[in-house]
């Protein structure tokens, strides 16, 4: 019976393509053994039903057959029928889908239970909209299901399907691509993140569907930057934001995740919580907050960030724009609040303060810069974080954030600076080999001045290096000193300890007020020292000396048996603390210590007897007997006393002690060299000494201060060559600056004849910009590049004067009348120079009449000084290029009589004419007006400056100086005026602010700022977009208001006929004028100026 049924089926399948029959046959083979006969019959019927269902349903049948075997391996036939019923039902919708379902069945089954089939199929079905494209998408759904379901439970599949469905409504290609990517994407995500990821994806698909592909590509990567636990939260936040901000949602998601990767994962939770609070008010603010978090977290801990956020939230609630700017770190308030909350002290905020402080202490012009700047020069200093000085500038770390309050951190800076200033003030770099020490006078013979005079009397181990005879002047005194010692490193370390002790002692004596802060840092420094017990003997001794130098006798650890050996060097060190000790004494003490220590073998000490060292002489440094300071004859005895503690007797390599942070780097040899190279030796007038590279090379090889390896990793020859280049560059630069200075002075005196102005590099200035939406300044928003105007010829100036001879004379006459009379008589005063005769007579008459009451009988001649400074700010934006006499050309056009034969000659003639009389442009009139005004101003002697501005974008506001306030008028100015030419955009705000700055630096009672423009302010990024006018006008208005606040008189003048509308807004209660007839500008400007100042 079975066979019969099979035969019938074969027969039935014959009407279909042979491929189906083949599938049937192979399926039959696997199915037949496992099915009961009635089941088989059912199976056959089902297959035939499917195939016969509709036109292309045979394909589905083929899939049905093929899937049957594998499916039956997993579930019973009953279950399979249940399962297949879903597929058969799908036939009603589309046989192709049904086929896809059957095809996927074997691989899907491990992940789904049979009852879930309906749900699974329904979701696929939902993608099908009856079109071919949707059908293929839906089929794709079934195809990729086996790869998706391992990662995503069916219950969450809905999210993906909705997402795809939503994309499909825009683009099937995109939807299909994303669906294809889905398995890979999901595999990259943690289980818990998958649903939120898809949820956010759904929102992206909704709000910014084009971003979906990017989201699938980059999303998982971006998400990994967020702390593991926080990812779902982050996604839901991103979703919440995206609902508000639409298209920006996805970029925000990527950028904020990037930002989060830059902050510590521990605070992600806190940041997200804060951001969620913001998201309720503004999605932008929430995301900007996260984007700014790396910079904020650099300064603030999470608690302070919360305070900062709270402050911003308040602003946000009042003004959305304000709050958003706050969190974008584009508002001055945001910075201020952060600064106030942070305990960190930044060098750039206090450098001027410290500079003046150091200047006060030392009396010399020291600079204060970040240590990085010195290390970047590559001239021998390598530590970026420690304070140091190279003799003219004090270098400090970029910021200090050691203690919980600003005051304490500033105190750290102060200690750093005071110590370095102390080196300058108390002459650490002024060692001179020929001068005898004060305190160590008795011992100095022989140990000092080793150079040249030999070291005859028993200075064991100290041999002057061979520097004799060869041009000694190239050697610095410090170098000569160190040359005495075989072990330069030891000598240098000892000298550093001794000298720092001396400096610290003097500083604490002279500046009692910093003692406390000093002691605190000393304490901190000593707490960080490595244990002495692990060090070999000599090194331990150096370490102990260093501890003693930090005022911590109590922290010295030393074997009790050898107490005597430690006592002597400590006594030497202590003597340097006496009042009146100089760097010469430090050198002498160093020599003594060196002698002592170089005899200490650097061996491991085999003793358990490390104990705190008690110095009986700990108070009074004077009490030490000079005699026992001399190592004298006992040098061999030293070694002997160590004998019992030297098990292997193995000499260990000597390591320098760890540096002390607040003392920083000390490189006296290098500093002396630099000073010598720069010609700044103590003796003063010695000219800079030209050193050959070879001589420097020699120095370099000897010096322990310069560790080339640290400097850069190259081979020695190359890097030392580099070092030398850097050093020479540094020196030349300083000499160059000097020469430049002299040259500049010479220029002024020789006048303009010798022509060539050096091209001056633009100097940069930074200004805030007013954001009226945020009602706050954007800090350091614009960069103004000041440069001198280009020079042309003086002809233009002369020609303009010639052209306007009449006008020039008129204005000059008018201006001469402005010149103040020296004295103006003021009458009827209660006190004055003398009696005002009229008043007296009147008074007397009244008195006789019996009713005199008037008491104001004096006059005074008051001196009237005209003290006016004015800055003219010309708009030289591109729009000033516009011609203003177009109508003339129009007429000429008409003259052409349409005869083509004559056209060429007519055209040539017209060109020639145009070249001879080019139409006047706005800028030409501006220039003419300026020329006339200058003529007039020169007659009354007001101070004035003429500037132009243009630029493109906020970081490139060009500011041209045609005549600076204090520059005398001359040919140069005339040449520059010739070259005034239209350039680019009109960002008025920063240009006005720069003018304000110019006027601030000018001494005058009346200060006027005249802005001459041809239109409204506009620039790239000057407002939300190029067409927005509000922002630029508000910023300009604010700039003008600032001028007024500074006591200046701002005045805006425009040749834009439409000027009234915005000038009214820009100037409100300030004076402005629209010059209706542009051509009258040259006449109008001087007249106006007269009115303003008369």
């Amino acid at each position, binding site marked *: 019976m079975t066979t019969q049924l099979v035969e019938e089926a074969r027969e039935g399948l014959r009407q279909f393509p042979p491929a189906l029959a083949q599938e049937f046959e192979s399926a039959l083979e696997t199915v037949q053994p496992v099915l009961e006969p009635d089941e088989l019959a059912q199976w056959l019927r089902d297959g035939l039903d499917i195939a016969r269902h509709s036109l292309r349903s045979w394909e589905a049948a083929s899939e049905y057959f093929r899937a049957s075997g594998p499916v039956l391996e997993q579930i019973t036939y009953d279950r399979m029928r249940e399962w297949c019923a879903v597929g058969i039902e799908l036939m009603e919708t589309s046989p192709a889908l049904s086929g896809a379902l059957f095809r996927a069945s074997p691989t899907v089954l491990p992940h789904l239970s049979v009852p879930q089939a309906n749900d699974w199929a329904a979701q696929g079905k939902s993608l099908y909209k009856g079109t071919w494209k949707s059908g293929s998408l839906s089929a794709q759904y079934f195809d990729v299901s086996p790869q998706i379901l391992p990662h995503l439970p069916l219950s969450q599949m809905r999210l993906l399907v909705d997402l795809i469905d939503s994309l499909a409504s825009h683009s099937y290609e995109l939807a299909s691509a994303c669906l294809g990517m889905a398995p890979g994407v999901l595999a990259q995500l943690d289980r818990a993140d998958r649903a939120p990821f898809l949820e956010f994806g759904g929102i992206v698909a909704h709000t910014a569907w084009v971003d979906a592909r990017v989201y699938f590509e980059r999303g998982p990567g971006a998400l990994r930057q967020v702390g593991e636990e926080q990812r779902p939260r982050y996604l839901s936040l991103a979703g919440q934001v995206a609902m508000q901000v639409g298209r920006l949602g996805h970029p925000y998601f990527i950028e904020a995740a990037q930002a989060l990767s830059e902050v510590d994962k521990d605070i992600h939770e806190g940041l997200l919580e804060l951001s969620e609070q913001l998201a309720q008010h503004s999605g932008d603010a929430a995301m900007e907050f996260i984007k700014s978090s790396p910079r904020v977290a650099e300064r603030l801990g999470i608690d302070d960030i919360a305070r900062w956020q709270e402050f911003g939230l308040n602003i946000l609630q009042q003004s959305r724009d304000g709050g958003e700017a706050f969190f974008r770190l584009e508002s001055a308030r945001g910075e201020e609040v952060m600064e106030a909350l942070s305990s960190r002290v930044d060098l750039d905020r206090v450098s001027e*303060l410290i500079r003046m*402080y150091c*200047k*006060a202490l030392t009396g010399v012009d020291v600079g204060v810069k970040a240590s990085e700047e010195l290390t970047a020069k590559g001239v021998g200093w390598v530590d970026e974080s420690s304070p140091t000085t190279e003799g003219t500038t004090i270098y400090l770390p970029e910021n200090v954030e050691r203690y919980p309050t600003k005051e304490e951190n500033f105190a750290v800076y102060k200690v750093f600076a005071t110590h370095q200033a102390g080196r300058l003030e108390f002459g650490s770099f002024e060692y001179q080999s020929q001068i005898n020490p004060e305190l160590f006078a008795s011992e100095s013979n022989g140990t000092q001045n080793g150079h040249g005079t030999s070291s005859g009397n028993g200075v064991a181990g100290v041999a002057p290096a061979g520097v004799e005879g060869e041009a000694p002047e190239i050697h610095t005194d410090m170098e000569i000193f160190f040359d005495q010692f075989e072990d330069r490193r030891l000598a240098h370390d000892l000298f550093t300890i001794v000298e720092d002790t001396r400096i610290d002692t003097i500083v604490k004596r002279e500046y009692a*007020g910093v003692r406390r802060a000093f002691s605190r840092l000393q304490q901190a420094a000593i707490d960080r020292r490595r244990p002495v017990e692990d060090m070999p003997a000599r090194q331990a001794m150096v370490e102990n000396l260093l501890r003693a130098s930090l005022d911590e006798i109590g922290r010295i650890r030393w074997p009790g048996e050898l107490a005597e050996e430690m006592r002597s060097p400590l006594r030497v060190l202590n003597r340097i603390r006496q009042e009146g000790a100089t760097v010469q004494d430090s050198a002498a003490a160093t020599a003594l210590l060196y002698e002592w220590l170089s005899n200490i073998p650097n061996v491991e000490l085999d003793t358990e007897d490390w104990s705190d060292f008690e110095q009986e002489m700990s108070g009074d440094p004077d009490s030490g007997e000079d005699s026992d300071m001399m190592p004298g004859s006992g040098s061999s005895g030293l070694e002997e006393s160590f004998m019992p503690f030297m098990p292997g007797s193995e000499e260990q390599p000597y390591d320098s002690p760890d540096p002390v942070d607040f003392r920083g780097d000390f490189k006296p040899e290098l500093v002396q060299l630099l000073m010598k190279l720069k010609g700044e030796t103590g003796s003063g007038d010695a000219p800079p000494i030209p050193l050959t590279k070879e001589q420097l090379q020699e120095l370099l090889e000897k010096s322990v201060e310069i560790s080339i390896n640290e400097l850069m990793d190259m081979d020695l020859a190359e890097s030392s060559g580099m070092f030398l280049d850097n050093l020479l560059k540094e020196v030349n630069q300083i000499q160059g600056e000097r020469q430049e200075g002299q040259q500049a002075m010479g220029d002024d005196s020789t006048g303009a004849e010798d022509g060539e102005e050096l091209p001056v590099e633009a100097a940069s200035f930074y200004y805030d910009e007013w954001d009226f939406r945020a009602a706050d300044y954007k800090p350091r928003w614009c960069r103004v590049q000041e440069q001198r105007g280009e020079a042309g010829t003086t002809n233009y100036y002369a020609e303009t004067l010639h052209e306007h001879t009449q006008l020039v004379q008129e204005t000059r006459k008018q201006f001469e009348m402005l010149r103040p009379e020296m004295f103006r008589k003021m009458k009827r005063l209660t*006190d004055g120079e003398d009696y005002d005769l009229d008043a007296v007579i009147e008074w007397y008459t009244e008195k006789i009449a019996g009713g005199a009451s008037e008491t104001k009988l004096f006059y005074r001649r008051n001196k009237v000084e005209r003290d006016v400074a004015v800055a003219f700010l010309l708009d030289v934006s591109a729009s000033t290029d516009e011609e203003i006499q177009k109508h003339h050309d129009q007429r000429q056009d008409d003259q052409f009589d349409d005869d083509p034969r004559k056209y060429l000659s007519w055209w040539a003639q017209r060109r020639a004419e145009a070249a001879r009389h080019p139409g006047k442009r706005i800028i030409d009139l501006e220039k003419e007006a300026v020329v006339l005004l200058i003529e007039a101003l020169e007659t009354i002697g007001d101070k004035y400056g003429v500037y132009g501005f243009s630029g493109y974008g906020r970081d490139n506001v060009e500011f041209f100086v045609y005549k600076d306030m204090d520059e005398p008028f001359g040919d140069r100015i005339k040449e520059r005026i010739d070259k005034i030419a239209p350039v680019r955009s009109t960002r008025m705000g920063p240009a006005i602010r720069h003018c304000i700055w110019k006027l601030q630096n000018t001494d005058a009672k009346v200060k006027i700022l005249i802005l001459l423009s041809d239109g409204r302010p506009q620039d790239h990024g000057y407002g939300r977009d190029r067409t927005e006018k509000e922002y630029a006008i508000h910023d300009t208005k604010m700039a003008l208001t600032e001028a007024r606040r500074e006591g200046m008189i701002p005045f805006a003048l425009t040749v834009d006929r439409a000027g009234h509308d915005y000038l009214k807004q820009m100037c409100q209660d300030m004076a402005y004028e629209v010059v209706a007839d542009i051509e009258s500008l040259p006449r109008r400007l001087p007249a106006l100026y007269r009115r303003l100042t008369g």
Partner: protein
Amino acid sequence: MTTASAPLTEYKSWAVEEFRLEEEPYYVPVSDEIEIFQAAWNNKIPVLLKGPTGCGKTRFVEYMAYHLNRPLAVVRDGKTEIEEESNLPLVTVACHEDLTASDLVGRYLLEGNETVWIDGPLTRAVKAGAICYLDEVVEARKDTTVLIHPLTDHRRILPVEKKSQLLQARDGFLLVISFNPGYQSALKDLKQSTRQRFVAVEFDYPPRETEAEIVQHEAGCSPEIALNLAKMAEKIRNLREHGLAEGASTRLLIYAGRMIAQGVSPRRACQVSIVWPLTDDGEVQRSIEEVVSSIFED
């Protein structure tokens, strides 16, 4: 000489030529200025004192006035005045920008129904043979130089224009002017024709130890405080021309010293009597305060 019945004159009263110092002013010479001044006075050469504010110029003039003696007898206008040997009267005029020639020479005043001529301080000094000290002379109006010139050369004459008189200065009269080259603008420099009529004594702040001694004496504070104040002043003066127009004057140090002697804490005393008077620039103030806090412990 003023009377309450003349309301117009009550605020114009000078009894200046009578002014003599009763007690010896405290003055510590820094170099040979005393000898120089003495020699100049002996030879009737006017003296120009240069130096920053508050470094002791005025005190020096007082000191000299106290120590210089007038001749015993002088005969003028047929009358013989016998003077006891006593110190010189000192007429001090602080010049300001509205000070005119008639402020110095004198003017008519209305009194009752008639005008009365009142001598100005310079006229009185000329008549009395006093030292006339014009403090900060460049501040005065330029017309005052008209008076100074004939007085300061060999003529020693004061023209009294309004009375059509010329006054010959009495022996003992010496014109002393002071002038601070540091802070005035170039406009207010002294003209060469004026400068070249004087011998000039240059003043500067005394060295640390001397200044400490002065502060201690004047302020009555402890020697340590005085020395620290002097040290601090030295540091602050390093900032001259670098944010500060003038260094901390000895006078300010004395004020600070007095405050401290009254029990004000040193840092606070320095703040109110040195830092704040010196500058309004916040940054500079802080720098100075850091110097102060480095030197004084509390």
